[in-house]
């Protein structure tokens, strides 16, 4: 991390692990609790559960890491990220779907039957191009106005998915999205898919790590703190903001592609505004301006749903909603007591 403070780590080394825990080191506690929960749940629910939840985690984590680049490192609170996720998901779905829609009585769209690994780059590049255009328009906005227009992007993209029926089949959704195929072997098994998703997550995390530890990442944090001052020291602020915005959008599109081929069916309901707000909440929960925090946040979010099943007064249908309540309350508590999130290095 570029912004680690010396004092806390030095003091920590003097105290040792137990001492730090006793001292109420929230970061350490958060790490331990989440890891213990992961292990506990996997033993309790078995490996099938671990595989499913691992895949869900990998997809969410790619999203949170990518969004943290924008929110945590650049200070732009974007609530529109789900749009790029959707672009990736729809690109892969439309290009790889094997259903012959002309046989269906509902909306018909052409079938392309591309392989997954040909469609994914198309989705990523498309998301990047859209991000470039959107970014040029959004570049002048900051703070709460940026939040408002990013809400706008989320709603506009959702409406496009829903209403551009000739391309997306609207509310009917797209079926039979292809699974990835590596050297003649289709990844039909859940375990194989998990491995691929985790590999993608590793790539995204590595790229993100390389970005934030480079001079480029340092400049981003400077821009976040004071745009004008960063400009006077020779940085073309708009270019930097645009670049990270596009990179982040492309990562989100990658998550989208994985998501649609994993579920094999998508419709606009996966890309509603609320999901986007959830996504921002997870990023803030895990911590701003830290990649590990984003991974932890995604893991917490995935586990929360399972945790809610323990509550006796919540019917199973409403577990997702209960998780949302918990997340909302957590978010408020964090804003009160720890505005940088669990592991964060940047306070809003």
């Amino acid at each position: 991390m570029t912004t680690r403070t010396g004092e806390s780590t030095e003091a920590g080394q003097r105290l040792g692990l137990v001492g730090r825990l006793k001292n109420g080191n929230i970061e350490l506690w958060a790490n331990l609790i989440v890891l213990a929960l992961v292990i506990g749940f996997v033993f309790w629910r078995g490996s099938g559960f671990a595989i499913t939840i691992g895949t869900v985690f990998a997809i969410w984590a790619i999203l949170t890491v990518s969004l943290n680049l924008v929110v945590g490192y650049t200070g732009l609170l974007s609530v529109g990220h789900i749009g790029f996720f959707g672009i990736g998901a729809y690109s892969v779905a439309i290009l790889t779907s094997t259903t012959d829609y002309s046989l269906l009585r509902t909306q018909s769209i052409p079938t392309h039957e591309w392989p997954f690994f040909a469609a994914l780059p198309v989705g990523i590049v498309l998301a990047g191009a859209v991000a470039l255009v959107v970014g040029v328009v959004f570049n002048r906005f900051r703070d709460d106005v940026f939040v408002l227009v990013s809400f706008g992007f989320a709603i506009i993209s959702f409406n496009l998915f829903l209403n551009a029926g000739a391309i997306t089949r609207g509310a009917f959704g797209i079926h039979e999205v292809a699974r990835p195929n590596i050297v003649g072997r289709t990844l039909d098994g859940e375990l194989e898919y998990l491995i691929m998703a985790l590999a993608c997550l590793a790539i995204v995390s590595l790229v993100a790590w390389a970005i934030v530890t480079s001079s480029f990442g340092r400049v981003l944090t400077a821009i976040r703190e004071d745009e004008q001052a960063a400009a006077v020291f020779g940085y073309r602020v708009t270019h930097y903001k645009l670049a990270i915005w596009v990179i982040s959008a492309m990562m989100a599109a990658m998550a989208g592609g994985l998501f649609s081929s994993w579920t094999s069916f998508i419709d606009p309901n996966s890309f509603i505004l609320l999901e986007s707000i959830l996504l921002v909440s997870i990023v803030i929960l895990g911590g701003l301006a830290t990649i590990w925090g984003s991974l932890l946040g995604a893991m917490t979010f995935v586990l929360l749903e399972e945790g809610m099943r323990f509550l006796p007064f919540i019917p199973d249908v409403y577990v997702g909603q209960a998780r949302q309540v918990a997340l909302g309350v957590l978010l408020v508590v964090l804003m009160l007591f720890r505005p940088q999130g669990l592991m964060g290095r940047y306070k809003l």
Partner: protein
Amino acid sequence: MRHQEVVGGHYEVQNPVVNIVFGLVVAGVVAWALFEILYPRLRGRFSRRSIQGAVGLAGILAGLYTGLLLVYPDNLHLLFGPVAGLAVGVAVALALREGLVRVTSSEDGPMATLVPAIIGLAVGAGAAAYIADRPESGLYLSWAVSCLLAGCVGLGLYRGLYVTLRNRARSPLIMLVASMGILLAISATITIVFESAPRPLPPAFGSGPIEFGGGNIKGFNFFTVGVSLAGFAGLLWLLQRTSFGRSVRAIGDDEDVSKVVGINTTVVIAIVFFIGAAFAAMAGILSGHDTAIQPRMGLLLLLKGWIASVVGGIGNLYGALLGGFALGMVEQFGIWDLAGEWKDVISFVVLILFLSFWPKGVLPRK
């Protein structure tokens, strides 16, 4: 609990947890508000403890009453009648007394108090009897109950969160993220309690279509327009003509200075929160009667409100009205060429255009 009905005699909520929570919120809010208002005035005459006791008792009673209202929504007209009557009576008495004092141009003791009191009492009792006599008035009373409840929840959030948050917050984004948290929690709670499917509210007056200029319009829509205009006029009067409004504007300009010159900023901001929440509830009810209610209906309405204020000019009441009206028109104009499903897109495109080229809005604040 999922097949029963909501407040208003047509849907019942018999979820004890919800009733208790609402009762507690109301009790807390009433106690706090009374304490905040009464304590500075009665400090000289009574001890802090006895004021707290009295206020606590009033809060508990208010909470119990709220619980009662929620438990027996069918008999809303009976339960709410006396309170409505009391309110009408007090209002009439006050108005009469004002007039009497002005006419006799002196505060000559018992006359100025007694006569209005008796007349007020009579009118209030009449109003109470009228309401209690008509079960169908339950629906309209439920509007009042909903608005008051929403106002209390808004006040509770203000006291419980806003005050603390603002003392700690270093940027407006913290408030924004906290509001997102509240939004997530509340909308999910509503989904858990009331299901996520949209459901219509019972028909109110004027729900049938009226032919107007070659098109069919619900009479209720005229009522909606009327209510929003009346609400706007009321707010305008409140802000421009009353000392409360002057305080609000002073706080808007500079809160610290307002505190120094002796405005009780806590109470004023609390009242603003209450009014805001009550108005939001009214908007929800009206749009619910127009289409249907569902847990997530709030966010988009809220965003549209935000857009309207940006388009009209932030911090300008006329601007907000103009912006809202213009936005509504633009959304509807869009229907000529495009299908209606694009209206959200149109709103946000308008927003982005305005922010890019006309960031101060149509009626900028000075």
